């Protein structure tokens, strides 16, 4: 099965003076991704720029509206995701536990819709 690991973090955790937190976490992500690749489990993923770069298109009642900012304002924001192959939820959860975070945060694990069934 494929699972998406959706990373929710407080962006403030990356805002230190010389960007060291950012560099450290990027290095950890590279190691994490390398391990997935080595085991043949990485199917995709990306890191996202911070929510001050986000623009949201909202459709309601057939009308589209644009607004500056993320879909919802909250302390923890979607910051990136991995798409991985795992035998079952427990295996995916084990990867989610190992996923690097700069500080506190959450990793939501969601099964991906299987196109074959």
């Amino acid at each position, binding site marked *: *099965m494929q699972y998406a690991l959706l990373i929710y973090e407080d962006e403030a955790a990356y805002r230190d003076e010389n960007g060291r937190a950012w560099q450290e976490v990027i290095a950890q992500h590279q190691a994490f991704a390398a391990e997935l690749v080595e085991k043949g489990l990485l199917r995709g993923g990306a890191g996202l720029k911070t929510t001050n770069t986000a623009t949201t298109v909202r459709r309601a009642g057939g009308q589209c509206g644009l607004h500056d900012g993320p879909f919802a304002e909250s302390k923890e924001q979607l910051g990136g995701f991995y798409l991985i192959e795992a035998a079952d*939820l427990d295996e995916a959860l084990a990867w989610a536990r190992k996923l690097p975070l700069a500080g506190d945060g959450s990793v939501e694990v969601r099964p991906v819709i299987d196109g074959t069934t």
Partner: protein
Amino acid sequence: MARSLLDQAARAHGGRVIAALAAKFRDLDLAEEAFAEACLAAAQAWGQNDAPRDPAAWLYSVAQRRALDMLRRRGVRTRLVPDPPQPPPSAEEAMVDDARLIPDERLRLIFVCCHPAVAPDARAALTLRLVCGLTTQEIARAFLVAEPTLAQRLVRAKRKIAEAGVAFEVPGPEAWPERIGAVLSTLEIAYAKAHEDAAGAGQHADYAKEMLDLTAVLAELLPDEPECLAFAALVRYAEARRPARLDDDGTMTPLSEQDPALWRRPLILEAERLLRAAAGRRRPGPRQLQAAIHAAWCARASLDEPAPWPTVLALYDALLTWRDDAVVRLNRAVAVAEVAGPAQALAEVDWLDSVAFRDFGPFHAVRADLLARLGRGVEALAAYDRALALDPAPAERLWLERRRGQAAAFP
């Protein structure tokens, strides 16, 4: 007659058969449906006084075939190798011992039902439904929720397990602290429901028996987990006292006033054996302490012996280091009243969060008793009224009314 034989077989072996099917097909709904169809087939096939020698094995092999049929009908391509088509087993067919034929997958099923990915309010219900074979109606009654609500919870939980891909595996030892904790707290909730009803009549009597079976399975399958052994011991100590929990009028009898001669000795001996085994693992835990509190009470041979309050208090003090919650503190206060007097106990009870306890009957009952013993009659009556207004079980209501009457007579 065949009908009741079928009911018995379904009740006694349903959990094992469903667990084996679920583990094989990795699909809870399919397992349940196939088992239901096998029961239906049995109702017809066993009609002519020719029930099979081994009903469980019969149900398992028919259910297995039905499951494969259903998979074929659904058009699911499956990597499972289907058995070659066979006629249904005849009654004469000598069945091998079902213990060898049906793999015992109940532990796997318990871990699936109690997975942290399943909503907490559905875990106990799902375990009772699938592992113990209780009906939705029985579980709904035990949990005091409407049957459609409970049915919906079960459907949602099963869908989550299927769609999120919860593993049908006993987790590896590295995950045990968390996963066994989830299993035990689920079973604790399930057992609390059975234990609340002092009378233990009707549905609850069966339900308590299921808890004895289930904890026996857990203790047998995880013999090196002291908290599992201790929980199995705890259920046995508590069930051992069931015959003494009501007096002749159907009024609840508090533990300290129960006649030990009425307790079921074989269950106490079993509990002691389990608790000793748990202690032998030298890894203490909260359930071992809780079981030890029960053990202290069950060591009493007759009402002439003093109640073990100092031991109980010491054990509650130790329990607080594991579980410092308000319910433990409330129970501890009852022991404090006996060892250090009601004034100190009341001070500790009043220090608890009265807002959280506003609708918790036992809190008001304990306060009422302490107030009455301190001669604060008016406040005691108000506290009894509060406890009585919270809809206690019939046996408890009678007891509270009796105590209230005594407090009113000597204000």
